[in-house]
């Protein structure tokens, strides 16, 4: 069974899959890693992005990636609104940890049920010219429905890294969980910084969702599978380091692709959770985090 062709194709598929995982995990890396907001509803927002792409693609035939990008600002405001609710209900009263967690759990549930009510539990697809095309380079097969999301996800990662490292607001977001007071002395309002950060995080879900529905058909509860996967990526990536998150995503993508190729796809979902449990038990600061 084991051949060289199979091996390099498994690696290539893993790299592309991992690139896409980065798009899903980045939003959580910002909220969980930098803001200490445990948004377990993040994958559900990604699925929401998928359904937005589905509805518009079906009615107007617009390219799903473009839809994802166009809807980023709308999701950005959604995220800002979400932070406002979270802040007023939990952070202000200092109960964010446990109640906040249960709040996002409930929110995830509500969003999922609303999507089931609106779209049913059928798998939905988008259509675009490149879905179904494959790029052949020697023995390497690169399906465009994997390659295009991977490239788009990588570009989005680079954009977020640049924003976080070059702009004042980006640096403020990186700083907000470390030293609130120092941030205030620098003339930045922590509440506003966090609001913008959660806005950006949810905005990435719009694009990630559009990419997801290019890769595979989507139904409302698909998001649950991503919870363990992206938490594994974020923790493995060292909590809040965007580039660490990207490399951890690639790693998980490659491992999953290997398991799927050599053991069967039904075991792949356990990879993320298994790695997450191991990481939490052995090295909670992640592969790329400081001890």
């Amino acid at each position, binding site marked *: 069974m084991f051949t060289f062709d199979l091996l390099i194709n498994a690696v290539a598929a893993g790299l592309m899959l991992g690139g896409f995982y980065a798009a899903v995990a980045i939003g959580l890396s910002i909220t969980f890693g930098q803001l200490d907001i*445990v948004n*377990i509803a993040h994958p559900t927002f990604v699925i929401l992005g998928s359904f937005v792409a589905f509805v518009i693609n079906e009615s107007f035939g617009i390219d799903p990636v473009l839809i994802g990008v166009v809807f980023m600002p709308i999701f950005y405001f959604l995220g800002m609104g979400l932070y406002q*609710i979270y802040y007023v*209900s*939990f952070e202000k009263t200092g*109960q964010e*940890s*446990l*109640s906040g*967690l*249960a*709040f996002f*759990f*409930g*929110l995830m*549930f*509500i969003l*999922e*049920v*609303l999507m*089931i*009510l609106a779209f049913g539990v059928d798998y939905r697809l988008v259509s675009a010219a490149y879905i179904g095309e494959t790029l052949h380079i020697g023995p390497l097969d690169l399906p465009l429905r994997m390659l295009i999301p991977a490239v788009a996800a990588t570009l989005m990662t680079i954009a977020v890294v640049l924003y976080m490292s070059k702009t004042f607001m980006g640096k403020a977001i990186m700083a907000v969980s470390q030293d609130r007071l120092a941030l205030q002395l620098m003339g930045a309002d922590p509440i506003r910084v966090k609001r913008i950060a959660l806005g950006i995080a949810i905005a990435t879900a719009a694009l990630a969702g559009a990419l997801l529905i290019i890769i595979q058909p989507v139904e409302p*509860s698909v998001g*649950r*599978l991503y*919870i*363990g996967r992206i*938490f*594994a990526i974020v*923790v493995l990536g060292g909590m809040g380091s965007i580039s660490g998150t990207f490399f951890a995503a690639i790693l998980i993508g490659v491992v999953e692709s290997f398991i799927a190729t050599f053991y069967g796809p*039904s*075991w792949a*979902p*356990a990879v993320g*959770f*298994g790695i*997450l*449990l191991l990481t*939490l*038990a052995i090295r*909670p600061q992640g592969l790329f985090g400081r001890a």
Partner: protein
Amino acid sequence: MKLDKFWIACIAILILGFVFTKNADNEFYFFTTYVILQGLVMAVAWNILGGFTGYVNFGAAGFFAVGVYTSVALNKAFGLPLPVILAVAGIIGGLLGLGAGYLTLRLKGVYFAIATLATALVIETIVNNWKYVGGAAGTYVLQPKQSFIFDNYIELLFMLMLVLSVAAVAISRYLSSSRVGKGLAAIRDDEVAAECMGVPTLRLKLISTTAMGVLMSIAGAPFPFFVTFVDPVSAFALLIAVNAIAMPMIGGTAYWYGPVIGALILGVVQETATVTISSELNLLIVGVLLVLFITMAPQGIVGVYHDWRKKRDAK
């Protein structure tokens, strides 16, 4: 032991339940109360860890499914009688709970919650690939023909769940009102401080996670005989995990009777909504109620009641 009001009430409930099986003939009542009571056991079990110590378990469905599939496997392999199956399910669930307890050594707060979620999904993947118990396709389970002293099997299952509920509430009440409960509350408020004061935090947490594991797993064990068809989707249903959290949160997590109140109210509302409107709407109700209570009344119904009484006394 002195026979106080609580024990009299427990015995009265059991006798009433038994009289009920002898007088009601509509099986629908037993199906409905079984579902509500199953939710109650899960909620009370969740609260023993979540409410008393503050460690959130998102993997309640995983513990439940361990009981379900222990039952399926034992029934298929040896055709063991139900009491033996319950005992084995309890032991396996307890061991899993014990494992979760050791996990708390390394993982605090949020990380523990995510780890429980991850554990549940790893178990689900294993079950999906375990062909013997039906894998992803599911399997049929036959109800035993004889039903002891009851007219039919559903009455027996109902009575069993009623006994389990009373037992779960009694355990939860014992844990919260004894020295153990004071220790657990100390862990919830400040684990490091509790440890420094000489509270045996690890031992208490292990007691609490094991009790939770045993109860959740036993709650799941009769499930295959109740539904007669089991697949991972029904055994690991998100609703089970959400209800286990929502019921205590709505009732009030700080007291042993909080989850009981929450489970009865939410259970009745859900069953009514499922019958009269639709099962999706039933899911929506849970989610919305959970979020509303967490944001507006974090102490639950019991907390609201206490506040109201305090205000009234102050006047």
